[in-house]
């Protein structure tokens, strides 16, 4: 349960292509108050 960034920590750099091949980062994903980042197992299975 205690894995990954803790409350109050800054997350590491986030940059990757999305389903359209467009590179996204926190700057492009976030709204004015931030973002929900969901770590999921797979869209394949």
């Amino acid at each position, binding site marked *: 349960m205690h894995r990954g960034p803790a409350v109050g920590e*800054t997350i590491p750099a986030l940059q990757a292509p999305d389903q359209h091949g467009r590179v996204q980062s926190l700057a492009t994903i976030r709204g004015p108050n931030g*973002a929900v980042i969901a770590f999921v197992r797979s869209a394949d299975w």
Partner: protein
Amino acid sequence: MERSQDALAAQGLGLCSISYDSVEILRDFAARRQITFPMLADPDSAIIRRFGLLNETVEPTSRDYGVPHPGLLVVDAGGIVRERFFEERYYNRMTMPTVLTRLGRAFEVERGSIAREHLRVGTRATQAAVHPGNRFTLFVDVIPLDGVHVYGPAVGGGYQALEGTVDPLPYLTFHPARYPDVTSLRLAWTDEVLTGYEAATRIAIDVSLGTRLEMAAVLEAGRGLTITGTLRVQACDDRMCWAPEAIPLAWHLDLIPPDLERSPESLQHKPKA
């Protein structure tokens, strides 16, 4: 998640997912399911590792190696973590309506209502339909009528403490009930300081469902999911106390089987050599 985008945008929050899928798998999935929020491709699990979320209990040669521990981070505009929602069991997911409720937006559907002469009790939930593995929230609303108060969860003094419980089911885990802060009650007949509630009060009980295999019989029966429970409560006004009560509660929810459709064969993850 797709349907919660508007509610998240209303809170000024963006949304993305990250997985070890390739862009091609995500393109195929997003087209099949009409997903519009960004699904980030991390096929080498570089981001997953950088976040410290690589699931290292997975066998390195298996198809699944590279997956993260599943969960949600809520970050502010500067990338600082505000909330984390990670579950003990890998197959449990807190649903988006439940996350939104934790973030302060009321998100609920009514499930039932019981009236007594001195109070009303309502049962609500964060959603009307659930899937195996979901973690969602059940609410018990205790609404004392004018002039009536109910005692709180730690009242003592021989009074019935407020308690909401859920009846056990083999495929369901319930989490400790959460109660709002109590107030001190000014009572005509005693100098004792008693605590409770004089206004509408919401008890929240999170429930985590088991896997589709654990729920096979309930899914097969096709009659949805009925969860029962009990509210123990004692109400008084400034002249008298009603006897302590055990009020039966019920929530009925639709139960939807999980999506088992896979990507086209040429795109699927395979075991590593």
